[in-house]
Structures are given as structure tokens and as C-alpha cells.
């Protein structure tokens, strides 16, 4: 009886599914609730992580390393996205002195 087998038996895969669903929804909640663009960004990171967790769980449970490779890629993309996104936010802040999304309304119609 290996350690993994033990884990499989004690922790059903569904638990991970639910956990990542909850984390994802917390991320969504954060995105909807907050006005600070940086917090929204962080919520998005949280959502990313929920998905990552799910991928890793599946990867382990099904013994397929592809899932983990994907997580690796997602991290790379997330890093890139954060760097560019934060750069944009910095520029916006520099110009408008605010990162409040309710005030960033000029991009319409």
C-alpha cells in the first residue's frame, strides 16, 4: 500500500473538485465585489490557482504528467500576464491617480 494509494482512498477526488470550485467562486466573488483593480487582479490569480489545483489533482489521480506540465505553463502565462497587467495599471495610475474600476469609464461606445 503506497502513500498515494492511501491518499486516493482517504481523499476522494471529489473533495478536490469541490475545493477548487469553492476557491474559484471566491475568486469570482472578489472580482465582483472589489473596486480596486489590483485586488481584482489578485482574485484572478486565485482563480488561476483553483484551476491549477484541479489540474494537479487530476494529473496525480490519473497518473498523467500532462496535467502538471499544463500547470507549469499556466504559471508562466500568469507571470507574463501579471507583469504586463500591473504595468498597465501603473500607467493608468500614473495618469489618473486611481485604479478604481468604477472610475475608469472612458472606454465605452
Amino acid at each position, binding site marked *: 500500500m503506497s502513500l498515494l494509494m492511501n491518499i486516493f482512498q482517504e481523499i476522494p477526488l471529489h473533495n478536490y473538485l469541490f475545493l477548487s470550485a469553492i476557491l474559484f467562486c471566491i475568486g469570482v466573488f472578489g472580482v465582483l465585489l472589489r473596486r480596486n483593480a489590483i485586488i481584482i487582479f489578485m482574485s484572478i490569480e486565485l482563480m488561476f490557482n483553483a484551476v491549477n489545483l484541479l489540474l494537479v489533482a487530476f494529473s496525480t489521480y490519473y497518473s498523467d504528467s500532462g496535467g502538471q506540465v499544463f500547470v507549469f505553463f499556466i504559471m508562466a502565462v500568469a507571470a507574463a500576464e501579471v507583469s504586463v497587467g500591473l504595468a498597465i495599471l501603473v500607467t493608468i495610475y*500614473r495618469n489618473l491617480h486611481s485604479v478604481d474600476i468604477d472610475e475608469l469609464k472612458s472606454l465605452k461606445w
Partner: protein
Amino acid sequence: MTFYIFLFLAALAVFCGLMTVTSRNPVHSVIFLIGCFFAIAGHYLLLNAQFLAVVHIIVYAGAIMVLFLFTLMMMNLNEASEGHKPALARISAVVSAGLLLFILIAALKKTEPFAPPLTIDHSIGLVKALGNTLLNEYLLPFEFVSILLLSSMVGAVLIAKRDKSPKPELE
């Protein structure tokens, strides 16, 4: 035993996540998010994905969150800087998120229970196995990611650079 570890880590992750989105102070949010990431790294370890766990800590907690902190400090944001959303918006945020959760849970409830595979490969989470997969099967995307990172780096620098030429005042 492992189940309790799972429960503890799960509770920690959810708690930290909730605190992240509800803290008034952005710096607190960042701290809680780091906590959340650690909890998730714990999950990774639990799932025998050691390499990812380490990378996760390094990339997220070490790099991304530091970036967030820097940005926050640069902007000098604090509790007072963010106004409350209107009540209606907050309620609808709760409702929407709740609805999404409900639908997701409902969907997941319908899925088949997990049947473990016959042979279990213990090595997939290890650096060696992962490296093999990454550099054999996924070599091309791997190289693309390097390009992506490079270009995002250039892009970030370019965007955030202070523009010297005079520009039209925005309202």
C-alpha cells in the same frame, strides 16, 4: 491522517482566500493570498507534486506577490483609498458568485465517482519525470513560453516606462 491534513489545508486555503477578497487593506489581502498559496502548495505536496509545489512557491509567493506588493506600495494605496460599492452591487456580487458556486457544485455532483487507475506511477510529480515530459512531448510549447515571457517582459517595461514626450491631458 492524510484526510485531516487535507481538511486543514483546504480550510486554510478557503479562509485565506475569503480574507483576501474581503480585507479592506490591500496589503492584508496580499498577505492572505500568500497564505492561500502556501496552503495550495501543501496540497501539491500532498498530491506528490513536489516539483510543482516548489515552483509554485517560488513563482507565486516569491515573484508575483512581491510584484503586487511593490505595485501597491508604489501607488500608496490604503484602506481609505477604496470606496464601497453600492449595496445593490455588493448583493448582486454575492448572489452571482453564489449562483456560480451552486451550479458548479450541482454539475460536479452529477459526475461519476473516481476509479483509480490500475497502475500508479509514483514518479510523475518528480522533477525527473516532469522534465522528461516537458522537454520531450511539450518542447515546442516550452520554447514558446520562453518567447512569451521575454515579450511580456519587454512589453511591461515599455508600457510602464514614463513617456517623456508631452501627451494630451486626459480628463
